[in-house]
């Protein structure tokens, strides 16, 4: 069992090394996120009240769009290089590989956005109390986005011709996440009930993502 966990840690270390090497990609994602916020501000105008009302929605939508930018990196390189097979042959089931990928996507892709959210909130005039609610909703929401990313990226392994299909799937499935995440921030009185719903969505995705992604990976390997 100790050996098994140490293997997981070694794999995470490799993911960490890969993401550190790809730091410029992460930087580009963050630049895309902030530039998009500026574009929204320029197009809407600098009216503080309008920005305060629309800001949370803008930030959440852009977080979603930014996270879809890194979908291609999810499984593609490991699949093409045969590393998914190598991981499997070293004792990792495809379900576990998917779960590890979700966690590493959350740590190495979503966490940098988490850090940048307070800065983005300042640009759109969101008050401090709402920034905290935004961070709480993003921690849960980004885990759901990581799960969604895993599902769509694994589906993309089966459909190499049309990559935007994966992004569309993420966007469609993330509509409830956006509704409840924005709702948490705008309706503080129903915070508890909405966060319970968000946790419910998270647990559903954590439950289905490994199995669904593993089926897609297995099928993609069979068809390759």
């Amino acid at each position: 069992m100790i050996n098994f966990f140490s293997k997981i840690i070694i794999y995470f270390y490799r993911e960490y090394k890969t993401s550190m090497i790809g730091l410029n990609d992460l930087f580009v994602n963050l630049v895309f996120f902030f530039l998009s916020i500026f574009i929204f501000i320029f197009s809407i105008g600098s009216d503080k009240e309008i920005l305060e009302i629309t800001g949370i929605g803008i930030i959440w939508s852009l977080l979603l769009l930014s996270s879809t930018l890194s979908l291609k990196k999810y499984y593609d390189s490991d699949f093409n290089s045969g590393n998914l097979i190598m991981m499997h042959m070293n004792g990792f089931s495809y379900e576990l590989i998917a779960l590890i990928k979700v966690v590493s996507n959350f740590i190495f892709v979503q966490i940098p956005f988490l850090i940048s959210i307070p800065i983005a909130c300042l640009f759109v005039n969101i008050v401090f109390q709402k920034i905290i609610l935004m961070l709480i909703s993003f921690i849960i929401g980004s885990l759901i986005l990581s799960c969604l990313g895993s599902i769509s990226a694994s589906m993309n392994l089966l459909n190499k011709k049309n990559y935007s299909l994966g992004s569309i799937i993420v966007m469609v499935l993330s509509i409830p996440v956006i509704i409840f995440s924005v709702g948490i921030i705008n309706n503080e009185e129903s915070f508890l009930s909405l966060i319970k719903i968000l946790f419910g969505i998270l647990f559903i995705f954590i439950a289905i993502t490994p199995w669904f992604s593993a089926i897609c990976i297995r099928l993609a390997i069979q068809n390759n």
Partner: protein
Amino acid sequence: MLLANNLQFKRQGLTIFENINVAANPGKIILIKGNNGSGKTTLLKTLLNILEPAEGDVFWFGKNIKTDIFKFYINTCYIMDKPTSNRDMSILENIYFWKKFSKSTISDQEIIRILNVLNLQNYAKQKIKFLSLGEIKKLELSRIIIEQKKLWILDEPFSNLDSNSIDIISKTFIDHSKNGGSVVFASHYNPNIHNEIISLDK
């Protein structure tokens, strides 16, 4: 030992190969040969349960590999026809990743010796993306020593290698078989070290 009975593989209704029997006893070196598209890689992947055969079963020491696939994998080293090493990591980083990941007990001195034998010692800290295809292939092949497994399954192990490296790898196969290991490899090049040939040509 690895035993495969009456293997058949179909893709989209087309039979790629059929009636294939493989018996990789300890000490045996099996060459799988065939023209392009004859199903060499497919056969290797079928032996590893990566692909599902239409008919036939694969056994490892008398047990169907599907009953405990990871027990089979613990004893198997598979070298693919494409590089699996991380292009952004150095030779040493990749080697230590494989060593730790396969729980190999190989010492640092032995790793240095492998690098020397394969003439990779000068590139140990070089990133893979800057290496030639032959050097990457040699690094991939170093896994057969590093992982210390009984059964070696290799897909085109001699592609992109110079004659000196082919000799080294061939000798390594022979040494492994003498030590009770088994080698199954698919190749267009025949180094004449095999005990058995499985031809997939129709």
